[in-house]
């Protein structure tokens, strides 16, 4: 077991866990932040995506020891004063979520994309989200949601 200090959604946390425990499992089991999901366990589907120091990362591939001192943002941390973040609102309005299991990762990937490209082209959107698999939507309405979020000036 090892002790790790990190910041999750702006809260400092101290975790006791085996150093190879996956960040995904620490979030879900130790911190009860179940927004990040396990879809594949091999970094293919993006359902486990979180932001580490502002960078989009698949949390199923991060041993917790390597997150020492990091700032982690999960889907639970995106809400602003108990209100939907503009990206969340656009996903809701545009039909960008159907079953919702890919949605936390997809929204974080969108957030990450819009930070880098506040007015992304469709090609940039496709690339930015290419690590997040959605089986329900066929991606069309996700692209719409991202474009609407860009128009709404979602990049803080």
């Amino acid at each position, binding site marked *: 077991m090892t002790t790790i200090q990190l910041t999750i959604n702006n809260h400092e946390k101290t975790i006791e866990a085996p150093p190879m425990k996956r960040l995904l499992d620490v979030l*879900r089991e130790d911190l009860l932040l*179940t*927004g*990040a*999901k*396990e*879809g*594949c*366990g*091999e970094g*293919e*589907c993006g*359902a486990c995506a979180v932001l580490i120091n502002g960078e989009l990362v698949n949390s199923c591939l991060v041993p917790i020891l390597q997150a020492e001192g990091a700032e982690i943002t*999960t*889907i*639970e941390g*995106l*809400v602003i004063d108990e209100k*939907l973040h503009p990206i*969340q*609102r656009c*996903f*809701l*309005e*545009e*039909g960008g*979520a*159907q*079953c*919702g*299991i*890919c*949605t*936390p990762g997809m*929204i974080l990937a969108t957030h990450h994309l819009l930070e880098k490209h506040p007015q992304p082209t469709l090609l940039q*959107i*496709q*690339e930015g*989200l*290419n*690590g*997040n*698999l*959605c*089986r*329900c*939507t*066929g*991606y*069309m*309405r*996700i*692209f719409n949601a991202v474009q609407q979020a860009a128009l709404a000036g979602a990049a803080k």
Partner: protein
Amino acid sequence: MASTPQIVGRSPLRKEGAAKVLGRAQYVDDIILPGMWFGATVRSTIPRGRITSIKFDPTIPWHEFTIVSAADIPGENTIVHLSKDHPCLAVSHVNHAEEPILLLAHPNRSVLPAAVAAVHITYEELPAIYTIEDSEKKEQIIWGEGEQANTFKTYLMQKNQVPIPDEIWEKAGFIVEGEYRTGAQEQLYIENNGVIAEYSATEGVTVRGSMQCPFYLVHALSLVFNLPAEKCRVIQTETGGAFGGKEDFPSVIGSHAALLAMKSGHPVKLCYDRAEDMAATTKRHPSRTRHRTAVSKDGKLLAGEIDFALDGGAYATLSPVVLSRGTIHAPGPYNWPYITVRAKAMATNIPPHGAFRGFGAPQSIFALERHMDKIAKVVGLTPEELRRRNFLSTGDRTATGQLLSDPVDMQHLLTRALEESNYHAKRAEFDRENPTSTIKRGIGFATFFHGAGFTGSGERRLNSLVEIELTPEGLPRILVSSTEFGQGTNTILCQVAAQTLNVPYDQVLIAQPDTNHVPNSGPTVASRTAMIVGKLVERAAQSFLDTLAPFLSSRTLSEADWGKGSAVSSDAAPNYTPKDFRRAAQRYLAQHGSLKSEARFESPDNIFWDDETYSGEAYPAYAWAVHVAEVAVDTTTYSANVTNFYTVQEVGKVLHPILAAGQIEGGVAQGIGYALYERCLWHNGHLANNQMTNYIMPTSADIPPIHVTFEEVPSPHGAYGAKGIGELPMDGPAPAILNAIEHATNIAFTEIPLLPEDIFERMTLIPNAGAESLDPAVAGPIFSEATA
């Protein structure tokens, strides 16, 4: 007074939407119950054989575990679907790789994989069969006996029950034959199968989890546990995609978890990881269709013989029903003076196949629409002209003899689809440019229909019931067993109720499907929810309103007026506000304590189906569609890409435009995967590519723009005229895409998935270069690892 605001036909925010975007929706693996243990399954490593020994490696502290075998089953060792051939746990024999043999439970999830690996099972292997052809040979009988050896089900469907007269063939202008094949397809919902089960000697069994049909699981549990249905409680949790893959399979995983809960005395969570889910659970049935068609010189269909065969895997599960739908859809939206469809579902030693969106129709429609393009070529007509000369139309009879009394206009749908996709201009442009380009472009289409609701007498047998109750706060709450798993069930049913009750959409609630509290409105399958269940919600809401009517009048009523007939007639414009409604509801509750209305399915008078002759009204309503696909085939890499996709569909009333379009887009994306990317690679009956890395599903970079156009011809059978749309979009993409690829390359591919290696083999005519050679055994062990 106030006119009724339009709720149906608009796109209000989904009831379940906010929780999803916030990441607060609770899927089964997010749920923890006090004292919960975890389960795992010990599975067969061989495809067929007799179990000769089971040994438990002494390095594991087995006393910490609960171990369940078939001997622990209180009731019947069966997972009931339509028949009882499917064991809950194997006893002496196994018939497919990954067949469940034992179950383990332990409080610590992380020790289970090692424990599973420490159960050593030896077998006497028997020869296994993996293809329809090997099953047909009946050299190895793996299921049934005699006439039914290896054969789960057969159907003979003949129009008017008349065989095709010989002179039809003799006098035909052309006889066109073709054979078409489709492969297995994995549903690949992003949330794997999972459940949490509890058991108490007094209360019975409770299972909550990811599923489509809570009452199917109730039925399965009642047999496994020998308990009445009331003691088998099933609750659907937020479900992360299903597509049919959680229609019949939860009966397996739910029974397993419940057995572990019973024996361990703890709640047990049993959630599969991706590798296990892909290897062990149901897939789409592979198919082989043979067409033999007599056509007149001017392109009229004279007669068709269709042999339609499905690979059902090791146990029957839903194969008879999949076969049924495939059979009925095999003739497509065309007039057949004579047609004979012989259908069969065969057994193989592969994990049993099951429901997947489309349910047999994508298979038979693929064959038909490829074959129609072939017929066109032989006869010398364009694909368009051939369809136009043969389309069914209003007043015609289908192959089952069903009179199409609702308006049907495939001519118009085809015209519209070809216009919207700029089909003719593109076809000419590609013909001009292809000879001098390394990228060959093509455009092709498919025309088809899809029946909504259960086949024939199915809806009558389901006898669905819907209820609406009043909450203590005076809000109507819908009670159905219909489940939401992305398609917006909760939303559209609330829209229907709100529209009928004339209250705001926000003020209609819907209960979580908990079989202790909701009636059986039937399974959430067969594109039936908007149409059949929606109609029942509409009726239940009307009945609700009628009950509430005396309390809704704007006149001051004396005591004596109450109950004396409705102050609000259902035909008059509603003359109450939402506030009036709440007040009336609360007054009703004060007087009567509770209000619950119900509506039960009533079989329409003019729906008649004969299971013996396979004739009559197969479905109460059909949706009609045309899909147009544009493709680019890169002759450098032999890869085919879909570059544009147009859909035009007539679906009755569109209840929620955004959700409806989302269904089409998602279905088309799965259809594109079915056609060009998703191959199940079997090696000795094992799924070799049971990971997302090696089972290729389209990413956001692979999907073209998908254009959706709806037309609406309201159906009397559906809520506000709605028909089913969930499965419709699955039928068109594969044939449209292969038709387009034929235009691009002049090669008639007849099998899906069509991989670059297959295109390479045909283009270069190098033998054994195609995807059949994707065999890791040939390469040797070093390259069979999972990752690069």
